């Protein structure tokens, strides 16, 4: 086990494409760090640079107290789990797991002991003599994990290890990986594009976009205090509703969204230092779907947006109510994602004519009907404010130290 540090790491490919820019990260001993971001954001490249599979163009990578820029993968003492599992098809499960140990000329009985133990942990004991092609997807994934575990490496590197599994198995393996990592206490860097995986697995989560690190923090802090529009739009499902609004002092504070007004508690100014400078000016406002509800079902709140329901999605535990607000939409800079959304529902997303589709996560007892008027109560104490020019959250303070041991309580 060791600390893994990336200092000013950058990657420029031979054709001039820049994949990663000035990446600074310190992963503490035994920490589980998740790198998350949309496809093409540089997270896998970053991981591969730590693994030694990609040359480091700029900066340094340190594992333990050794700068490994010039150290080949085989001498870095890190183990990697690949998205494709990359099992050796001609070897049995036992030999697949033992491969790395055999190469290190470890004594036979020690190899057997470690393979047996890994197989016990992963429930592979009955399959040790099978070939990978005779295993199910979940079992193959476990073999790939086993191959990493027996090495007892300085760090685990995992590149979307669950994305080839079906949804149910993914949830199950996610829990197993979390348990394993906690039991073994090995420093882990885990790359995923799935924010659920990121939020549930990571001690800390690093959000990347276009090769640039956006924010690193505990999962809950990312959700509660996104550093900028990108993180705000990326973390959370459904995504945070982002629109242009104006904060005005009119007796009390009020948020103006198009022709609607919401009262905002004065504590907002205290919670978001610097917000005062933006009074009376346009800013980007974020409202989480979770911070809204059907006004008829909440207790007498008078902070209500009125509109017409355009789509009602019953999820069982919640009902997603889509409605429009007369305020221009704000693009979180997550171009990949928004394009997808536009393709999926061209009529719904987009701020044409200064309107924004807002999604509220409502109590399942809501009576909202498509095409009927709705009244949506907003918890205005939990609004998010962003500078519309820079996209930075107003009053955001980065966590003081990112290097302390930040392990979650079990």
């Amino acid at each position, binding site marked *: 086990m060791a600390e893994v540090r990336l200092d000013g790491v950058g990657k420029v490919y031979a054709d001039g494409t820049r994949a990663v820019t000035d990446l600074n990260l310190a992963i503490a001993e035994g920490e589980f760090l998740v790198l998350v971001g949309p496809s093409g954001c540089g997270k896998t490249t970053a991981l591969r640079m730590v*693994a*030694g*599979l990609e040359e480091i163009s700029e900066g340094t990578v340190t594992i333990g107290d050794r700068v490994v820029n010039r150290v*080949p*993968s*085989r*001498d870095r003492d*890190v*183990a*990697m789990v*690949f*998205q*494709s*599992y*990359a*099992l*050796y*098809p*001609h070897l049995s499960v036992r030999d697949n797991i033992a*491969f*790395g140990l055999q*190469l*290190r000329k470890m004594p036979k009985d020690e190899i057997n002991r470690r393979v047996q133990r890994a197989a016990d942990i992963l429930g592979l004991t009955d399959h040790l003599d099978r*070939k*990978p*092609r*005779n*295993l199910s*997807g979940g079992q*193959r994934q476990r073999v790939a994990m086993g*191959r990493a575990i027996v*090495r007892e490496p300085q760090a685990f590197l995992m590149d979307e290890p669950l994305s*080839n599994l079906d949804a149910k198995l993914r949830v199950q393996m996610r829990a197993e990986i979390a348990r394993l990592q906690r039991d073994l206490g090995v420093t882990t860097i885990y790359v995923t594009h799935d924010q659920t995986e990121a939020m549930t697995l990571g001690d800390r989560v690093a959000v990347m976009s276009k090769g640039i690190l956006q924010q690193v923090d505990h999962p809950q802090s990312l959700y509660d205090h996104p550093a900028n529009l990108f993180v705000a739009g990326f973390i959370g499902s459904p995504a945070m509703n982002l629109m242009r609004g104006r904060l005005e002092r009119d007796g009390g504070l009020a948020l103006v969204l198009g022709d609607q007004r919401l009262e905002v508690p004065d504590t907002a100014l205290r919670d978001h230092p610097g917000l005062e400078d933006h009074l009376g000016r346009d800013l980007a406002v974020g409202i989480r779907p979770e911070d809204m509800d059907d006004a008829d079902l909440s207790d007498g709140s008078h902070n209500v947006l009125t509109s017409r329901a355009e789509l009602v999605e019953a999820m069982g535990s919640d009902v997603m109510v889509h409605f429009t607000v007369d305020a221009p939409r704000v693009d979180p800079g997550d171009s990949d994602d928004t394009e997808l959304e536009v393709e999926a529902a061209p009529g719904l997303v987009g701020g044409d004519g200064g309107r924004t589709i807002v999604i509220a996560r409502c109590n399942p007892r809501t009576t909202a009907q498509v095409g009927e008027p709705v009244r949506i109560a907003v918890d205005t104490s939990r609004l998010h404010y962003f500078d519309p020019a820079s996209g930075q959250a107003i009053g955001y303070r980065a966590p003081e130290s990112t290097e302390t041991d930040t392990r979650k309580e079990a």
Partner: protein
Amino acid sequence: MSAVPDVNHVESAGSADSPDSRDAAGGGGSIQRGPVGRLVSAVGSGVVQLFLVIVAIFWLVPSFGLLIASFRPESDNSTSGWWTALTKPAQLTLENYQNLLQNGAITHSFLNTVYITVPATLLVIILASLAAYAFAWLDFPGRDWLFILVVGLLVVPIQVALIPVAQLYGTLGIFGTRLSVILFHVAFGLPFAVFLLRNFFAGIPRDLLEAARMDGASEWTIFRKVILPLGLPAIASLGIFQFLWVWNDLLIALVFASSDAAPLTVALQSQVRQFGANIDLLSSGAFLSLIVPLIVFFSFQRYFVQGVMAGSVK
């Protein structure tokens, strides 16, 4: 000359197998059909099978005739056709083979064939697989240009190289030796071998090599423990092809091998007379020459297993 019966034999063995598999497939597919449909498909597959059997027999006849002839005494061969042996099997004898094996020139040339073919095959496999790995997976300057050069060499005909290489051998003083024949075969076998193996190796998932690298493998270990086992189907096919080419070669041996180094093909060719008097020696010699490639083919063909890659990634 032994190439013709040899290829025929292999082909017919292949087509003799296929009626069985057709039958199995047809039977499986006809389960859901009605009685009429079943009758139609039974008749249909019957016709197909009959056709295949006829083709197989048609292909087999020359080789079969040669085989029978090799078991008939010279006197019978010169007076009646081989098919008379079908009604009068008493004339069959092992005498031709006994004579053949006692013929010092033939056994010596047979050994020459082995001494030429085995190293020429092994050298090509070893050199080509190493080169193919480098072309497929190692980054070095000029890699693509070199590979294009190798592919370009594929189109060089052997005939244009005979004279310059003969001159070169003369200068080196190895003209007429087995070594000269081996070297020529290796040189002209390599471009195709490198091309074939490089393309196969390049199809091995990159993740596997990277996984091995992470597991602590050096390039050499990756080659030995990952690439070679996974490349076995391609290496087996290459081995069979190269073995057959060298074993059946007449032209190169005729040009470069002195009589002491001449392989079986040359020895048999020198026995060919204008009026075909020594069919007993030629037919049995041809079968002696044919039996080894057949053994090689059937012992390596099991590596042509489909789906060796299954289960490695995804």
